[in-house]
């Protein structure tokens, strides 16, 4: 029990620093018009144990998002996307529920749920997160084509990094 809290706390801090100090500086595109952000911090939200209460997931997502915002100097933008991801996590989990229901003591990881399930799960949530993020960033759907292009490019890049982490560390919880 304690180890799960410890692991998740470490993941919180680690992903926050990785996002804010490393990936913040990687941007591909024109100077004032970056097409590509690598966003990995929502991985924390995705990997929270299955038994975490819905409200706690949303609250933790907000905390992480607002912390990232402080590092990015974009107060509220990442937080709103993170809260959205935290909210739809339970819906996606219900959608992808395997035949024999979840083992509630597990976390949704490759080791526990299998690679295929995990890729599906992460893809849906990451795409939603990144799309929401770019929508809030533009704050209007006038540039919807632009938003979608950025979303797709950033989504692919982020997925690569997320899968590398998962396969490297391959955590159980």
């Amino acid at each position, binding site marked *: 029990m304690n180890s799960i809290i410890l692991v998740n706390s470490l993941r919180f801090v680690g992903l926050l620093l990785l996002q804010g100090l490393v990936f913040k500086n990687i941007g591909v595109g024109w100077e004032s018009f970056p097409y590509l952000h690598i966003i990995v911090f929502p991985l924390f939200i995705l990997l929270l144990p299955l038994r975490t209460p*819905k*409200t706690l997931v*949303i*609250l933790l997502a*907000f905390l992480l*998002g607002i912390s990232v*915002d402080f590092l990015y100097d*974009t*107060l*509220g*933008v990442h*937080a*709103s996307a993170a*809260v*959205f991801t*935290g*909210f739809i996590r*339970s819906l996606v989990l219900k959608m992808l529920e395997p035949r024999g229901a979840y083992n509630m003591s597990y976390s949704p990881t490759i080791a526990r749920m299998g690679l295929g399930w995990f890729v599906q799960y992460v893809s849906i949530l990451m795409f939603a997160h990144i799309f929401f993020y770019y929508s*809030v*960033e*533009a*704050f*209007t759907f006038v540039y919807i084509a632009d938003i979608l292009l950025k979303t797709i490019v950033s989504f692919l890049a982020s997925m690569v990094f997320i899968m590398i982490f998962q396969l490297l560390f391959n955590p159980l919880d």
Partner: protein
Amino acid sequence: MFNLVQLLIKLSGFLLFVLLEAICFSLVVRYNGNQEKVYTNTVNQFTGWMQKKSASTYQYFQLYDENKRLAKENSKLLDRLANVGINVQNPLDTVWADTLQPKYSFLEAQVIRNSINQNHNYITLNKGSDDGVTAHSGVVSDDGVIGIVRKVSKNYSVAMSILHRQAIVNARVRHKNYFGPMTWKSDNIHIFNLENIPKDAPVTKGDTIETSGYSTMFPPGIALGVVDKLWMDPGSNFFTIEVRSFAKLSNLQHAYIVRNIFKDEQEQLEKSVITEDE
């Protein structure tokens, strides 16, 4: 109560989501220049739209008073218009004090009852003897003649509509001055008959028919309608003319009662001649 608490627990995730998103969005528009611009622009557009809508709604509620005001204004203008012709027709060197006095005055009234589907239709107006209405006064609307006052009480008057089998309006062909009585004989509320136009009169389809001014009820020159059909019955010396009227009797709201100030004088004089001959 228990159900409500249960519902709130069930919805807690969603409610927290909405609350936190609200906080996030307020932070976004507060601390991010780009989004703030989009936000203020949108809000300005929306409030502008709202203000326009509310202003037009408010104007709509004012329409009743506005209509009343306009109707009063109209009656004043009609007063002046009807009297302009009369004063001009008198050569300046023979003007008497009396001829400069107005001959007609128009009293604005509201139609409170009206019918169009009988053989004898009547219009009730909300002005009566207290307002100076007398029997046998003409009633006109913005479109033309609509009736003749038959009876007057203290506050109301009942006019016989021109859609009355016995109503007769003295009419003439505009600019041609051939005159005759206009009556309603058809079943169509827009079609009237003009009689006594001799067969040598150069009347054609499309000519305007107006009041002649020979009766004491209406000032001359109020439009009545246009000639719709005309033909000559075999053996007759007169045209049979069907007139399509301008008056919209089916949605009357305002009317003007015509008062002829010299009506009594004219009628007495005419009557005295007739009695003398008899």
